[in-house]
Each structure stands twice: as C-alpha cells, then as structure tokens.
C-alpha cells in the first residue's frame, strides 16, 4: 500500500494497524510533499461535503412523486383491514351485563318515583297537624304595626263587620245594576218605536242635559259605588299581606292524585355513540312564581342542587335515542294560599315554602348527539311533601373529555298542591349547570 492509499484509508477510518498508522504519521511529519497530499485530500473531502449539502431535488420532482403514489393508490385495491382484535377479557363487568343493566335501569326509574312517593306519603300525617296549626297561625308584627293581632276577637269582629258591609254594598250594586238594565231596555224599545231617532257617531258621556246646558252625571253608576268599596276593603287585605310574615311550613296541603306522564318524542336523530350510564350533579338557579314583593326575608330567587343519574335506552333494548333518569335534591316553591273562603282570619297568604326533598324521574329523547355536543329534552315528574310536580326542560352537554361532560339547560317545574280544597299551583323556572361522568 503506497502512501496515497494509506492516507485515503486513514481519512476513511479504514487504517486499523497501529504500526502502519505510526509509520504514516512519521512520513507525513518528515516529508512535506506527502503532507501536501494529505492536505489536498482533506480539502477535497471538505469541498465535496459542501457540494453534497447544496444538492436538493426540485419541488416539481417531489410533486411528481406524490402524484405517482396517488396513481399507485388508484390502481392498488385497498387492503382488507384486519379484523378488530377481541377485547382482552371476554367477560363483561357485572354492571354491563344486559340483564343487570336492564334491571338496574328499571330500578333507577322506580327509585326516582319511589322517593317522591314515600316523601309525599308523609303528608297524610302532617296535613292534620298542619290544619290545626293554620288556625293558630302566628302573625309577626312589623315595627309600629298595631292594627292586627293574630287571632284576637277584635280582629275577627272587625273582619266580620267588613264582610257584612261588603255584602250589603254588593246587594246595593246588584239592585242598581237591575235598575240600569231596565232603563236600557226601556230606551231600546223607545228607539225602536221612533223612526226619526238618530244616534250621533260622536262619543257621548251618558247623562242628561239640564235646561241650562250643563250635564249631570247619574248618581247610581257603578264606578260611584265601587270606588268607596275599593278604598275601604282592599286596604285591609293588602295591609294584612304586607304586615304578615307567615310561617306555614306545615300548611294543610294534601297530595293531588294527578301525575305527569311523559311522552317520548318520536323520530329523533339517532346518535352515533351511546354512553351507558351517567351520574352527575346539577346546580339549579331558580325563579319561583308567583313572585313575592315586599315581604321581608323572602326571596323568589335561590339556588339548590340535585344528584342525577341516567341510563341509555339502548341498554334496555330500545333503538330510539332515549335516556331514562332519576334525580333527587331539595328545593322551594312560592305559593299563594287563599283562606277567606271559609271565613278564616286571613284572606291571602303568600309564602315561600321551606326547603323540602324531592325525587323525580324523567325520560330524555336526544335531539343532538355529536362527538363533542349533545342536547336532549327532558320530560318528567316527581313528588314532594306538598304534592307532585311535572318537569319539562332542555339539557345540553359539552363533552370535554372521554367520560366527562359539562351540562347546562333550562327547565320549568310545575307543582300541584291542595289547601282546604283549593288546588294551588306554583312554578319554578330554572337554569342549571352541572357536571356529569359517563361510563
């Protein structure tokens, strides 16, 4: 191997013999013309390195390759995808077995109804107690208020006098009304008997002209009688209403037999993916109707929470995109109770009910079911200690992660209750936000 070959092998890392390397280095050290050969090779290697780094294919050449593989794809049949691997464990979890899931779904719906029914069943016992309590209802006075003392004989006498006075005025009004009706009939018959009688198209106030041209308003018109009644009677009821802070937590209310029945919607769009179970919590922001004004320490707006669970109808063998669910929590309703029909001391009580527990069940047909968003209507009903209620709402869910979603929606809850034979209805308008876990 000559010096040139040895230099080439050395630079390419192919000179492994230490003796040869030592001899070559000695020659290079003592022979300048051999060193020049080494320097030329080093310089040449560096130059080719620079040359190689600057060479690149054109964009059109790359584009032609991509076009070419597109043509290959077009000519190559798609390979048959391998069968999906079987799940590692052929046995399903206990709660995923079809029979168990169906049974659990039925139990879940039953649970929501049963909670309401059981809680509602206590009203039989509490109603009797409450009925006694309402007769001895305590009216708390406002500072400086002296007119009404709850349940005192003076108040009862005053109210009875007022009632007699009202009845008397009613009789007077009825008599005046009959008189006016007779007068109208007489005028009509007179008009029919006089062909030249013409009625001006201009609006005229009812009355008679006096000889000097002045107009006299009849003294027996209804407004003239009704005005003093309004000023004398209504202030009493409103005064009581404003001054009474009534606690009728156990008002005599019995459960109505009517119940809400949900009607699942048909022809809803089927979702691509169904989750089996859902459990979540919702925070409700409620506006309770009728609204209460001017009563201290009572508000129509409040928040409460409920725990909610649901089951996909597919697990029960249903094809339509339905969910069945149940929830329980605590809430309040505003109520207007009229007590004057039986001659009781109070005529109207507007109260905010105490917080009571409820259970409810619902059916939720899905309206939208995409990868990241879902929406459904919720029809349902449930029970409370003061009566049953029906619910209708919309719920939307934003699927933030696999198995986790945020919920929001609107609903209306309609409550029936009874008080001394009256049917009393109340409504809560709700907005809710919540979170749910899906599995």
């Amino acid at each position: 191997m000559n010096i040139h070959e040895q230099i080439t092998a050395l630079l390419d890392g192919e000179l492994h013999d230490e003796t040869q390397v030592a001899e070559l280095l000695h020659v290079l050290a003592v022979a300048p013309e051999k060193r020049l050969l080494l320097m030329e090779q080093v310089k040449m290697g560096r130059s080719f390195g620079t040359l190689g780094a600057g060479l690149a294919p054109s964009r059109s050449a790359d584009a032609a390759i991509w076009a070419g593989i597109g043509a290959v794809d077009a000519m190559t049949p798609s390979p048959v995808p391998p069968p999906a691997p079987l799940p590692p464990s052929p046995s399903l979890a206990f709660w995923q077995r079809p029979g168990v899931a169906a049974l659990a779904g039925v139990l879940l719906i039953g649970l929501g109804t049963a909670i309401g029914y059981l809680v509602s069943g206590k009203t039989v016992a509490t109603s009797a107690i409450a009925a006694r309590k309402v007769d001895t209802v305590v009216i708390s006075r406002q500072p400086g208020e002296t007119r009404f003392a709850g349940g005192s004989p003076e108040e009862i006498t005053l109210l009875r006098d007022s009632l007699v006075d009202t009845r008397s005025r009613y009789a007077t009004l009825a008599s005046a009304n009959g008189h006016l009706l007779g007068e109208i009939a007489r005028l009509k018959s007179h008009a029919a008997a006089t062909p030249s009688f013409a009625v001006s198209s201009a609006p005229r106030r009812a009355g008679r002209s006096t000889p000097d041209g002045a107009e006299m308003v009849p003294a027996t018109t209804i407004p003239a009688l009704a005005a003093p009644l309004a000023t004398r009677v209504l202030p009493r009821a409103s005064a009581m209403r404003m001054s009474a802070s009534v606690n009728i937590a156990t008002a005599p209310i019995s459960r109505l037999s009517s119940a809400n029945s949900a009607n699942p919607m048909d022809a809803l769009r089927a979702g691509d993916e169904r989750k089996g179970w859902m459990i979540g919590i919702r925070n409700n922001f409620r506006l309770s109707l009728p609204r209460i004004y001017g009563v201290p320490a009572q508000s129509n707006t409040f928040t409460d929470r409920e725990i909610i669970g649901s089951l996909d109808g597919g697990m029960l063998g249903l094809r339509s995109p339905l969910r069945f669910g149940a929830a329980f929590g605590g809430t309040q309703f505003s109520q207007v109770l009229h007590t004057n029909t039986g001659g009781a001391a109070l005529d109207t009580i507007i109260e905010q009910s105490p917080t009571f527990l409820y259970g409810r069940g619902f059916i939720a047909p899905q309206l939208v079911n995409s990868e990241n968003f879902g929406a459904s209507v919720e029809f349902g009903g449930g029970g409370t200690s003061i009566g049953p209620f029906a619910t209708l709402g919309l719920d939307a869910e934003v699927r933030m992660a696999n198995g986790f979603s945020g919920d929001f929606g609107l609903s209306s809850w309609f409550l029936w209750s009874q008080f001394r034979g009256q049917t009393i209805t109340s409504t809560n308008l709700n907005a809710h936000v919540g979170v749910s876990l899906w599995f």
Partner: protein
Amino acid sequence: MIEDQALAERVSAGDHAAFSLLFERYKAGIYRFCLLMLSDEAVAEDVYQEVFINFYRACRAGQVMHNVRGYLLTAARTRCLNVLRTSNRHVSLEDVPERAYEVDPATADTNAHLRNALAAINPNYREAFLLCEFEGYSYDEIAKQLNVTHDIVKNRIYRAKQALQKILRPLLRDDSM
C-alpha cells in the same frame, strides 16, 4: 424516531404520512446519488422519482422492507447503472475511459468543478466514492452493497480519490479555496 420497518409496514396499508416520513428521511441522499452518478439533472430526477414510486408500489404490493435505506439505494444504483450502460452501449462500465477535464479556477465555481470532476472518473470508482464520501458507508457496507470484496472497494475508492485529486489539483492548491 419511528423505525423504518414500522413505517414501511404502515406504507403497505396506504399510509401516506408514513411514506412522507420515509421520503423526507432519504430523498436528499437518493437524489444526490442519482445526480452525481448521472451528471444530468433531468435524468437524475426521473430516476429519483422512479425509485420512490417503485418503493411505494412494492410496499403496497406487500413486499417486506427489512432495510429501507438499502432498498432505496440499491434501486437508485441499479437504475443509474442502467442509464449509464445505455449511454455506453458498446463498452462495459469497467472500461469506460476517464474523460479529460481541466479545472480552471478562474472560469467556474467550485461546485461545478467538483461535479465535472466526478463525471470525468470511471463510474465504478465514482459509485464507491459517492457511497463512502456522501452516504457515510464503511468499506464493508459498500462491499456488501456492491456485492464485491472489501479490497475492491478500497481500491476503487483510492483510485477515485487519486483521479479526483489529480483533476482538482489546480483548485486544491489554490489558496483561496
């Protein structure tokens, strides 16, 4: 970094993303080899396209790729040699004479001199030199690739460098380089 073989398996299923990764990984080396072997950009691009499209077709046909780089380089080399054989019909590559090329440092840029010098040497020497100098193969790897002995590779590379050094000497001894 995903292994070449795993990517090739994905390419066989028509995965363009996997092909893109392999393409970006090896396109510069293959193109450089083709261009410097053939000294003709248009022909080099044709060969370069053919190499990658055939690679994709082979993958889609189910051919197992144990060594993607080796496959591509062998395909490029085979095609380049075919082109060269076609242009030198009556002479074997062993006997292709070296072309005369004189470097004038004042007339062209360095890269043009280097490419012309490479084009002037024997294709067999050039091939071994390119694999060693540009692709970083060892002599043993080149021997395996070219299906020749280690000594032949060593000899070819030596002769290539000797010839190039001789052609490029005016340039290499120019202090401005």
